[in-house]
């Protein structure tokens, strides 16, 4: 992949962008292969985007590209929060959690009035 193409300043920024994307993916506990694959995809997309809007920065564009890829994968994959192995599915999990997480059951209101003391 021709990532080293461009000015030296750009090279440094692209390295930082790569580090940022990898750092983000590290939090998701993906396999190494999957992490690298996603990082590569995000950086490539960022490069194309940057050509359209050169005032932007590789770090900003890479992270945005990564978000778009993750969102796309999440919507197409299963929405199960927990896999059979008991692991939170890394890609569906992160977005699915926002939509599906159920911290409390539905309300079933009753009354509890303070007693009296005379």
């Amino acid at each position, binding site marked *: 992949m021709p990532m080293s193409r461009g000015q030296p300043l750009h090279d440094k920024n692209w390295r930082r962008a790569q580090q940022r994307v990898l750092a983000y993916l590290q939090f998701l506990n993906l396999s190494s292969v999957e992490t690298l694959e996603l990082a590569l995809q995000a950086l490539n997309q960022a490069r194309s985007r940057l050509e359209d809007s050169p005032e932007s920065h590789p770090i900003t564009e890479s992270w945005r590209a990564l978000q778009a890829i993750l969102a796309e994968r999440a919507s197409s994959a299963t929405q199960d929060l*927990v896999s059979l192995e008991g692991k939170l599915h890394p890609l569906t999990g992160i977005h699915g959690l926002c939509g599906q997480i159920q911290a409390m059951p539905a309300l079933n209101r009753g009354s509890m009035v303070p007693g009296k003391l005379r």
Partner: protein
Amino acid sequence: MNLTSFDKPWEKAARLRRLLLLALIITTSVIASGHMADILPHRGATRLEFVIVIVFATLFAWISIGFWEAMAGLFTLARRVDRFSITLGIEGDLTLEGTGARTAILIPVANEEPDRVFAGIKATYQSLEDTGQIRHFDFFVLSDSSDPDRWVEEEIAWAETCRSLRAFNRIFYRRRRVNLKRKSGNIADFCRRWGKNYRYMIVFDADSVMAGESLVRMVQAMERHPKVGILQTAPLAVNRETLIARTQQFANHVYSSMFAAGLHFIQLGDSHFWGHNAIIRVEPFMQHCGLPELPGKPPRGGFIMSHDFVEAAFMRRGGWEVWLAYVLGGSYEEVPPTLLEELKRDRRWCQGNLQHIRIAFAKGLLSAHRALFLHGAMSYGSSLLWFVFITLSTTAAITEAFRTPVYFPEGRTLFPDWPVWHPQWALTLLGTTAIILFMPKLFSILLIMFKSDQVRKYGGRLKLLASLVLEVFLSALFAPVRMLFHSKFVFITLLGRQVGWGPQQRSDLGTGWMEAIRFHGMGTLLALIWAMALFFINRSFFWWNAPIFIPLLLSIPLSVWSSRASVGRGFRMLGLLLIPEETEQPMVLKSLEASLASEHKTFASYPEAGGFVKAIINPVVNAIHLGLLRGKERNVTQAIASGRAGLLEKAMSQGPLSLNPREKRIILYDPVLVEELHRRVWETPDDRIVSLWGGIGRH
């Protein structure tokens, strides 16, 4: 339903037993007070001596309550048959099939250590799963945590626990925005929201752990006795390693079964609720146990601080019974790890218990519960009385030393008035007091001695006896220190000063020397002045009081030394102060230990950061937090919106360290801010901002 007639067998028995207890207490106290008057120089004839005798009588009555309760417990346990035991008849199959009873296990927390709280939940959950009855139970973590870092850590721990147990929709988490009425308000809030879904609720403390079998048995007991509103277990203290905590654990294990049996003997269906490790019938609780605010300002007025006793009294007032399941095992709690932590807790309890004096005289309550309120107040009031007793007797001793004896007082008299001191009588009285205090301990040990399987779990007969001696010695050392602090707490509360209600330190971190000096310095100084005064003015009285002032003089090293886990572990290695749970760890406690030791926490990566930073940086934590905020978006005014925008800019430009807890809470409450901050921190090319947020790009 109204309780006006006493037609149940237990009620008749309870009345007779309480009358007997009262008679025994009065008789022993009158006899002992008579002896006390006899050993005083003027046989109680002076005003000062008269007050001393009255205070002594009250204190003696107080300790004799414990003694006679223990004797009742000994009688119950020795007989091995208790027709009123609430757990009789639930020894059958461990199943709740066909009952239709759903039970919520409530874990109210406020700034507690999330790892410990959720490890306890996990252990209890797994234990319940092993019984095959988990489908009849739900867990609710009810958080009142105000610390923003703890708040997010709780969310992480909740998600971790649900994930690892596959217990989403079985373990629930709710955090209150407004912590009205603290724990009691938190539970009342649960009742109003979801109480109708459950027939029972089992209330835990943050450090409670219960075996699944015990939980199922509690539900079975409630099903078997439909008039029982609250069923309290007698929790056993476990898991601590510091010396003072291991001493408390040992005492709790050895003596509590006898005292609990004694309490049950006297109280029967008018028992205590201790606020945790108890099962409650939800419907009558909602109907009768809403707590009012007391007129006036805190600490005497305001909301009721120690809610549990009041809830038990209200439950009884509503016609429901409150029982103590004193033979049911598998119920555990943890004691404070240090003397200072224990005293901090006592300060809150003292304030709450003294507030009960007002409630004790309210209309409509049963006399048994009025007695419990006064008993609770005396738990701390007795310390002040002891302090007063020592002060008065010291005053009398000093006065006597300076006074010229008047052998022939005014008026006609056949004989001279000799101020006589009878040391042998004093020794007899001291011996009687010692019997009242220590005999129950000896009987408790004997009860264990007769059970060979039990003796083994305490390290054998010899080590059990040595542990008893050690426990008595350490208790005697700590007693004057506790007395001094409790007196201060009572005094401060009576003056109307309020105390904070912070979280308890529940881990075995020791007490530092400076902290100990700060807490015990004044007490040490007071004891030094007192001891010196007695030494120079009344030498014989000095020696009589040595067991009180020596511990006070040693309180600083005692507090530090007893707070060390290494010292506690040393005694454990010697086989001293052992408890059965240390020799043969039950499965639920093994599970707790394993869970605490486990370092595999998927969402908790980025461990060096606090909860707030994790919620902003860690995408999974961010998603969990946003997920839990779902539905809480609120329309805000322009002014609030612009304030929040300013906060966002501050967080971005100055980093998380520039934010105070209130500002962090504002951000965490606003899903838009949380999402926006997450995005902006991750996509910024500015290295300075990245480093402010922990250098995320360098991972």
